[in-house]
């Protein structure tokens, strides 16, 4: 095989390799149960510094990715707040992640639903992408070791929280 033919074959292989790599990366980007949750820091929605999931190591965290423009997020917000009121404390918290959203709109949403759990702002949606989120809302239960234990795509209901999440949590605060 001549040098010129070798260069052409290598170039074709390189292009095919890049395409395959792109497909593999796209397919395998979603996290699964048992995977460690992303640990990147995000700004607090209310302002005043940043927080990351690593700050909650040792506690159960129900990370809820939402946005103010998302209608199903409105449906599930009261159920999440009710869960926080019953179980929220040192050993468990719901953690809101306002994704691809304007911070003012996000703060308005929190005020409208009287959400008392901590909220982070993921304006560019990159943090949701790290989870492999396919949209909003999505909810991930993360254990005290920082591993994902449950994944709920779409709005969570009171029944889901009672049947799937609560049995895994430490006993409710008295």
């Amino acid at each position, binding site marked *: 095989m001549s040098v010129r033919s070798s260069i052409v074959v290598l170039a074709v292989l390189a292009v095919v390799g890049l395409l395959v790599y792109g497909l593999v990366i796209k397919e395998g980007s979603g996290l699964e149960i048992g995977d460690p949750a992303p640990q990147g820091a995000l700004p607090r929605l209310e302002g005043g510094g940043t927080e990351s999931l690593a700050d909650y190591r040792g506690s159960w965290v129900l990370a809820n990715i939402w946005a103010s*423009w*998302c*209608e199903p997020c409105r449906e599930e917000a009261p159920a999440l707040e009710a869960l926080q009121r019953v179980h929220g404390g040192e050993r468990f918290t719901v953690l809101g992640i306002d994704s*691809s959203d*304007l911070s003012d*709109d996000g703060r308005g949403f929190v005020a409208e639903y009287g959400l008392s759990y901590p909220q982070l702002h993921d*304006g*560019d*949606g*990159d943090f949701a992408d790290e989870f492999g989120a396919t949209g909003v809302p999505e909810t991930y239960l993360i254990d005290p070791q920082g591993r994902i234990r449950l994944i709920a795509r779409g709005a969570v209901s009171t029944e889901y929280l009672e049947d799937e999440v609560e049995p895994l949590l430490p006993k409710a605060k008295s």
Partner: protein
Amino acid sequence: MSRRRTGLRLALGALLALLLLAPAAGAATPQTSLSEVEGEVMCPVCGTLLELAESPQALSQKDFIKRLVAQGQSKEQIKAALVAEYGEEVLALPEDDGFTLSAYVVPIVAFIVAVIALGFGVWRWRRAGGSAGPGPPAAATPGPSSEDNRRLDEDLGRYDL
């Protein structure tokens, strides 16, 4: 005299009020429009230009732009505010400084290199085509040898022409 002074004071007061209000009115004058901005920014969730998007997120982003336009902010100020909210990915066109400048420079350089390569290729092809063409003038071609002529005569002699 006192009336004239009072009138003069009122006129000066009105002038002063106008001078004070003028910058505020100027600040609220729209410097750009939604249509100008939405053609240059992305809808981050849809992955398309904002002007082509109609998703709930896009509508919320358009409302945000309208509010800033009403406040008299310039296109660049609005784009900066969008970057602060959604990150650099919200810009449809990369900034023309730093590393992102390569997004503009590389295609231009690639185009120039391609034109030069094409020109060089055509030049070589024409040169090669010249030597393999219809052939040099007849005078430059050596004629048939006497042996060739003899064989030709023999071959022709076999046919009844």
